[in-house]
């Protein structure tokens, strides 16, 4: 407990440095089993390393300005053998074993028994997320991962193009997405709430804009969410949004995007069936609002240069607004 309290105190000190730092993407605020283990490991190493650094500074100071009696024990080969060989050998041996044990702990999470699978595919520069339920049915979403709290979940990480790296710092360490391979990452969220993640392997052009959110629900909420999310898009009664829906199909947006329950079945870009219910647009580049939709459609190459969607300037201002209202309504 007291170790925990010490850690909290040191963390608090650090927080002063992090003043104004949002903790949504921070390894210092773990909400997942692996991230928690690593956070403890970090503090153990940091404190031990800090002490060693202070020790070296003190020894150097003694060597430079210390009295003869203090310097004498430092000035021979025996000192090197003790401080430079024996001491590091002992410390490193302990650290190595500790590291191996923590590494081995990664294997202990048993696969979840509800049969749900998650496939995440990195694409330049967004995340395609596919959920498979126990019966093998699947549906797609993008740039947002929803998981139940307390259950280990298996993420199948692949890539459609170059190497990406899936990193949700508050939940676990990163794991790369490599062409021709499927890497399995097992996550266990320990707390409800939203956190943020980002691509951690440089993947060209808009690498800086390839982020996502992870939402951890209680089991009941998660099942509710799954039931809603797997369904088709909600019908909209608003007249302008309805016009926007027609515009979406007429302008050919369905060539790249899918909206389940409509004629839009494109598979190139993100599935937009429930895009209005997500926390962000364009891989956590913009907040989710009607204004942001309009901005994105006409101005996306400025907002996120080199992204694969061409800017659409064919719409009038009111058409753009209709389209944006429609997309926003897809909760």
């Amino acid at each position, binding site marked *: 407990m007291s170790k925990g309290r010490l850690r909290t105190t040191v963390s608090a000190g650090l927080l002063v440095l992090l003043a104004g730092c949002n903790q949504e993407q921070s390894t210092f605020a773990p909400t997942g089993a692996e991230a928690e283990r690593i956070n403890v490991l970090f503090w153990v190493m940091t404190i031990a390393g800090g002490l060693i650094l202070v020790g070296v500074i003190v020894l150097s100071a003694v060597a430079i300005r210390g009295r003869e009696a203090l310097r004498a024990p430092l000035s021979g080969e025996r000192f090197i053998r003790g401080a430079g060989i024996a001491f590091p*050998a002992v410390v*490193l*041996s302990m650290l*190595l*074993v500790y590291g*191996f*044990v923590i*590494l*081995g702990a*990664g*294997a202990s999470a048993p696969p979840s028994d509800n049969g749900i699978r998650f496939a995440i595919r990195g694409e330049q520069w967004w995340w395609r997320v596919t959920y498979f339920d126990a019966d093998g049915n699947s549906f797609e979403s993008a740039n947002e991962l929803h998981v139940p709290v307390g259950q280990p979940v298996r993420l199948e990480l692949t890539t459609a193009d170059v190497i990406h790296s899936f990193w949700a710092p508050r939940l*676990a*360490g990163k*794991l790369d997405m490599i062409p021709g391979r499927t*890497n*399995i*990452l*097992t996550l266990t969220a320990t707390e409800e709430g939203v956190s943020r993640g980002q691509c951690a392997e440089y993947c060209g052009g808009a690498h800086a804009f390839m982020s996502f959110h992870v939402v951890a629900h209680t089991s009941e909420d998660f099942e509710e969410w799954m039931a809603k999310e797997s369904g088709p898009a909600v019908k909209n009664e608003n007249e302008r949004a309805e016009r926007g829906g027609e515009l979406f199909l007429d302008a050919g947006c369905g060539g790249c995007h899918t909206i389940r329950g409509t004629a839009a079945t494109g598979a190139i870009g993100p599935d937009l069936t429930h895009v209005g219910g997500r926390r962000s647009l364009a891989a956590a580049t913009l907040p989710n609002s009607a204004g942001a939709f309009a901005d994105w459609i006409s101005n996306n190459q400025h907002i996120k240069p080199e992204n694969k969607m061409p800017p659409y300037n064919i719409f009038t201002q009111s058409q753009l607004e209709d389209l944006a209202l429609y997309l926003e309504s897809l909760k």
Partner: protein
Amino acid sequence: MRRTGSRSNLQGMGTLVFMLVGPIVWTVHLTLIYGSQSLLCALNLGEDRSAGNAAIIAIILVATAVCIAAVGFSAARPGFVHALIARADLPADQAGFIVTIMRVLAWLSILAMLYAGLGAVILPACGQLR
């Protein structure tokens, strides 16, 4: 060799190699354990995991033991090993320096090999552990 003076330089090369016995065996050790583990894990996929895994762990531990024994022997009997490698006695006035370097390197290499072998004691052979 048809030219004079060549022997001492080839022996010099041998003495350099002799000094490096520990790290050279360490290199062989890493190649052996990493190579065999990667290969067997790649081939073993989908087959009976437990037996294959035990075999991999056994290979690593045996390789570690053999390599450590080899380096330990060299550190204990430097004269013999030098004669084996360089086909000559140690240069008398340099022997102290050369053997010291060789011995400390040998101990460091043994430690490094122990560290690597330790992994096989604690961790499963092929799991991704993520």
